[in-house]
């Protein structure tokens, strides 16, 4: 156990060194991709907690992200930029004078998203399966419609521009590491075991004395908390947000990450967040003209992407990791070609 702690510490140190040098030497395009990788890790983990570990098929993630992104943006926008943004209708009173630092804004974004999730979850989490999916999808659409129509709070369909680009590698990778740490601790706690029990069999879990309502709402709210933070990071990376960003496609992207990584695996989510974000950039050449004299087909990249991911769902259903996790024992066992574990629980 102590050996593993040392390894984890070393890995974190290596990551620290990597971020330090990446921040100094990489160009802005690569930095943006790395930032997106880390942010999608946070978002993927938050959705995997709800969908993969608790087995609640929720499609409301884009809504929680919207809450987070708008909260962070509204709190961090400088007053002058706010006045420039809200030229159609002035911003309502307390918000137009508040400017917060990034960290408290992010935390408040997470808390607000969690509160929204609690309000939604308390009535809706009684539903199961497809009904839950469509109800959460509905709520995320309602959030988006409300944001489109509240001109004096969110600037409506115009969106917000000129959000300070606070998100850098320190923020995104820092948040990702903290999220991973919290998720792993949560999943290995008694709460995590209760979540998994609910995923495997609700009725059995309930008869073992697990409160379904409490644990479902808890998982939903924690997932939404991190979705809100991820949304906030994303907004302050992009610099502009508008309600159209948080359509169903956003949820779909994150769903793809957790499906490819394996529903119910933290390791898988991290790997596939990186794979998918980088692949999306890598496949960008498909949108350019490939063969001379044949005009480019914009959108081809997304077609290839959706075909690839259909293939994953159809033929490769457990994803990269299934429900397996990374551990140092397995890692070294793999290189030593020995039996994987020494037997018995740790």
């Amino acid at each position: 156990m102590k050996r593993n702690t040392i390894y984890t510490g070393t890995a974190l140190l290596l990551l620290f060194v990597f971020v330090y040098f990446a921040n100094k030497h990489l160009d802005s395009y690569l930095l943006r991709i790395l930032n997106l990788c880390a942010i999608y890790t946070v978002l993927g983990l938050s959705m995997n907690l709800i969908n993969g570990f608790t087995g609640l098929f929720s499609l409301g993630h884009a809504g929680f992200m919207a809450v987070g992104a708008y909260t962070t943006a509204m709190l961090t926008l400088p007053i002058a930029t706010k006045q420039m943004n809200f030229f159609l209708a002035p911003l309502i009173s307390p918000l137009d004078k508040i400017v917060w630092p990034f960290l408290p804004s992010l935390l408040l974004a997470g808390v607000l998203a969690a509160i929204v999730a609690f309000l939604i979850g308390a009535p809706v989490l009684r539903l199961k399966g497809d009904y839950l999916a469509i109800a959460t999808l509905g709520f995320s659409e309602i959030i988006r419609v409300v944001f489109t129509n509240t001109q004096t709070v969110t600037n409506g369909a115009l969106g917000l521009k000129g959000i300070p680009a606070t998100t850098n590698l320190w923020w995104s990778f820092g948040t990702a590491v903290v999220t991973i740490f919290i998720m792993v601790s949560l999943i290995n706690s008694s709460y995590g075991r209760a979540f998994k029990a609910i995923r495997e069999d609700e009725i059995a879990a309930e008869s073992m004395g697990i409160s379904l309502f409490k644990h479902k709402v808890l998982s939903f709210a924690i997932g939404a908390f991190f979705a809100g933070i991820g949304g906030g990071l994303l907004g302050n990376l992009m610099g502009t947000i508008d309600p159209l960003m948080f359509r169903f496609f956003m949820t779909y992207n994150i769903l793809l990450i957790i499906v490819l990584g394996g529903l119910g695996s933290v390791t898988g989510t991290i790997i596939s967040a990186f794979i998918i974000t980088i692949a999306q950039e890598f496949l960008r050449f498909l949108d350019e003209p490939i063969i001379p004299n044949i005009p480019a087909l914009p959108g081809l990249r997304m077609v290839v992407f959706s075909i690839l991911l259909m293939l994953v769902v159809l033929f490769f259903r457990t994803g990269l990791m299934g429900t397996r996790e990374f551990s140092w024992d397995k890692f070294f066992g793999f290189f030593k070609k020995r039996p994987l574990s020494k037997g018995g629980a740790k």
Partner: protein
Amino acid sequence: MISGTIGSLLMKFYLGGVYMTLELFLQHLANGISLGSLYALIAIGYTMVYGILRLINFAHGDIFMMAVYFAFFGVVTFGMPWYVSFIVAIALTGILGMTVEALAYRPIREAPRISILISAIGASYLLENLAIVIFGGRPKTFPQVPIFTDMVQIGNIHIQKLTFMIPAVTIALLIVLMYLINKTKSGMAMRAVSKDFETAKIMGVNVNRTISFTFGVGSLLAAVGGIMWGLKFPSILPLMGVMPGIKCFIAAVIGGIGSVTGAVIGGFILGIGEILLVAFLPELSGYRDAFSFILLILILLFRPTGIMGEKISEKV
């Protein structure tokens, strides 16, 4: 002339800040009924597939979109007369529906529900992206067919002929569908498969063919709905199927998923409700799309099986 005077004298009522004459109200109602009929046609596809496979066919809205584009290209690019083009489009859409089933749903029919649902979402995403690449992301204008799109005058109101034709077509198709489901052998097979998959198989029902047939019928109805949609709302886009798709699923849930009558009732409730909401409370018109979701959540909370649904008890 006379009827116009009577109409304006008859009644003026005040509701939610809008003065409304009876004529205006009737016009909104007619629009609501025709929108409701379109929703009903698409909702039937959802409800039939759900009844038989317990699957939300997320791609249904995109199949509907494809039908509109097929009809568009038939008329505009290939210069076919509208009736030929519409029939070809409807047939192609039926084939498309069966292809989606065979490629995206059949291979993982035995998989956990979540995998099938993800596959459905994937199929929908693929169709949308294909449409963007093949048809282009810019809006196109659906050809106007005078027989459908001419205006008629009744009293003081001018209204498209289409507004009356849509409900008529819907009712006609419903009668055919009811006959198909209740009186024919394939209909019997469909009902058997939706009651009990395994037993139907043992009794010699060709399950694969029945499911394929169900997808085909659902897609045909969506195609008819799509073409009429294109005539009514001529601006067509690759993503035009998303919202109607979700709304029609909601209509199917409101009516009680698995029941064709329920889907029709749900479609009418949504269509009429939406139009009247915008008519009476114009300040809420921005929330038009949220209306159906709020209705969905209310229904799910208070009567989860919908208006016509049967109570299902959970088996341990």
